[in-house]
């Protein structure tokens, strides 16, 4: 048995099918998957909602806030890196969607508008939610966080009640957009076996069978060229009569080396995410107060709405403008248009996004991690006697942040190289590579500088 497992482990690392392991295969095919993880997640979600609305009004003391913003939010990009969009398979919103749909669902087709502009709506929602968080202090206010989660729940219930499958998750969820980008850099990939799928006439993976419904996010594994939407729910594995579905491990960012049909909205989101990470970092810096004072003097108003919005816009526009600049320089060397370069090479920022996002949240997870335990203990009347919530010292966390940024930089650099190599030849490869290398280096250095500065805690 040991030798068999060892062999399989090696095969996984070589890109072999994880489902070749009979235990994994049985688990994914069983009716317990993903329910056995989904239902506890839903229960925890209910506890979080209760705590956010009826627990301590101070975020520092609130168990719901700790679970949401100190545990879940920092873990999310890490999950996307290692397990792709697996979180979406067990997300409580998806469970609520499925439940409502099962009993009262109209199963209407997805409106064409959402299909066409869904990712732009996601981009806009992501920007709006981040802006709202800073203006209204959603994260700092348990009720604010509760309202955000209930707004999403309402949208999910409306979607599940009237539209087919997981329309909200696929076309509207702001986190889905983030997940879509990050999972392309992720290490887990689900896909059909081309030679088996070529002879398939049932398309059970898409339409569903008595064993499981069709793909909840409207994917057809036979045609799938990206992991951006697959949530690894296992329904296609259960439904496929030919055992065509494979789940394989791949090197991080590999999918981004060969993007066949790049989309401008994905590249745009990649740049925007970098801007959002900047905003999150800058507003948590201890010098943020001084920056605001300076802005107040410049704008002549003390309105936080005005001054933050200016900061927010600068942070959003900066990476977009830098990507635009690099694309413009590259277009002079590779004969592609600015828009083509922007779209194609914008994907390379995703690796840096992921690294910066994880690095930023690593601070919350490791410097405030014990607050989850303390606020949880407080529910049972135990107190922490003012103990530090840190799991690790700040210098060690910073060291990890720098390391992550270097990895992200190397990842982005390699993606640029591969994209350039796929599309161009000879000297054009390097001529195209250079401006993007400068862009990635600039973004990486900017992040590292921000991580060197003292940061305020969330809890």
């Amino acid at each position, binding site marked *: 048995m040991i030798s068999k497992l060892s062999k399989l482990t090696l095969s996984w690392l070589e890109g072999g099918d994880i489902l070749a392991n009979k235990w994994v295969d049985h688990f994914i095919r069983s009716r317990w998957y993903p329910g056995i993880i989904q239902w506890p997640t839903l229960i925890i979600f209910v506890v979080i909602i209760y705590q956010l609305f009826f627990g301590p*009004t101070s975020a520092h003391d609130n168990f719901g806030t700790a679970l949401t913003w100190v545990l879940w939010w920092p873990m999310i990009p890490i999950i996307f890196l290692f397990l792709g969009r697996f979180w979406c398979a067990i997300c409580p919103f998806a469970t609520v969607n499925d439940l409502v749909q099962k009993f*009262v669902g*109209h199963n209407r087709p997805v409106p064409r508008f959402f299909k066409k502009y869904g990712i732009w709506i996601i981009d806009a929602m992501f920007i709006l939610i981040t802006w709202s968080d800073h203006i209204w202090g959603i994260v700092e206010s348990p009720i604010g966080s509760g309202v955000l989660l*209930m707004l999403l729940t*309402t949208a999910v*219930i409306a979607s599940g009640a009237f539209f087919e499958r997981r329309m909200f998750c696929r076309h509207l969820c702001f986190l889905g957009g983030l997940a879509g980008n990050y999972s392309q850099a992720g290490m887990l990939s689900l896909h059909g076996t081309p030679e088996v799928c070529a002879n398939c006439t049932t398309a059970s993976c898409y339409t569903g069978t008595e064993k499981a419904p069709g793909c909840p996010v409207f994917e057809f594994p036979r045609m799938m060229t990206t992991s951006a939407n697959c949530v690894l729910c296992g329904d296609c594995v259960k439904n496929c009569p030919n055992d065509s579905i494979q789940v394989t491990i791949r090197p991080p960012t590999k999918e981004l080396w060969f993007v066949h049909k790049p989309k401008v909205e994905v590249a745009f989101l990649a740049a925007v995410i970098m801007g959002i990470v900047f905003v999150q970092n800058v507003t948590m810096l201890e010098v943020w107060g001084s920056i605001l004072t300076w802005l107040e003097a410049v704008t002549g108003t003390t309105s936080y709405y005005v001054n933050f919005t200016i900061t927010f816009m600068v942070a959003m526009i900066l990476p977009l403008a830098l990507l635009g600049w690099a694309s413009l320089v590259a277009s002079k060397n590779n004969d592609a248009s600015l828009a083509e370069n922007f779209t194609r090479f914008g994907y390379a920022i995703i690796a840096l996004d992921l690294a910066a996002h994880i690095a930023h949240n690593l601070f919350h997870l490791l410097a405030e991690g014990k607050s989850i335990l303390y*606020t949880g203990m407080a529910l049972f009347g135990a107190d922490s006697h003012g103990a530090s919530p840190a799991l690790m010292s700040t210098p060690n966390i910073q060291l990890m942040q720098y390391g992550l940024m270097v990895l992200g930089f190397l990842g982005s650099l390699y993606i640029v190289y591969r994209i350039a190599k796929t599309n161009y030849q000879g000297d054009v490869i390097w001529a195209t590579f250079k401006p993007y290398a400068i862009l990635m280096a600039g973004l990486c250095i900017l992040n590292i500088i921000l991580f060197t500065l003292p940061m305020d805690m969330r809890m």
Partner: protein
Amino acid sequence: MAQTKSIRWLISGLALSLLILMLPGTALASSESEESTMVTVGGYYVSLVVSKPFKTGGNPFHLQILDEMAEPVGGAQVKISATPSSAMPANDTQHQMENMENMENMENMENMENMENGADEMSGMRGMQHDMPNMDAAPTYTSANDMSGQPGDYAGIIAFSAAGPWVLKAHFSIDGQVLDAEFPVDVEASSSAFAILAWFIFLNAVLIWAASISRQKPVSA
């Protein structure tokens, strides 16, 4: 088929029941009543007057101080502390007042200065709360200002970070005499939180109900 129909009726019934239940609940949440509690300390009658039951978050209150002759006592220096009753013994006045004294020496003193102008709450004193023993319900402090035109009447806003039993302690000095008056209070969860959640539940129930009744019946063969 019959089972599906029953489930749909059940869902509709549950959604409707939720709507009905939410209405009185929301109305109850907005009800108000004025309450007064009086204690005698050092020959003074100290009354705590609140217009509605204490909730989590900021709460306005009045403190009335009368002397032995039932005459209003003006010009007193009044400071208020609120401590979860589970966090410390009820008679641990010394420790509590030490905290208040420390507070005066802290950098957050500018917050206190702001309060002098309008009895602002001290819920923003996060730095201090970090050092407090009970994570679930950190003590808060405020001052009560003499209301102009109404001698003996002091007003302020006190913040409670969690629901449950609390001890509200008035620390006041009159003509050099320092006195303490304690008021055990029950703090309820904020009605605004209840109202917001009720509104969302109502909205979602309406959505589910609407979907349930408007769902097309399958065409039988």
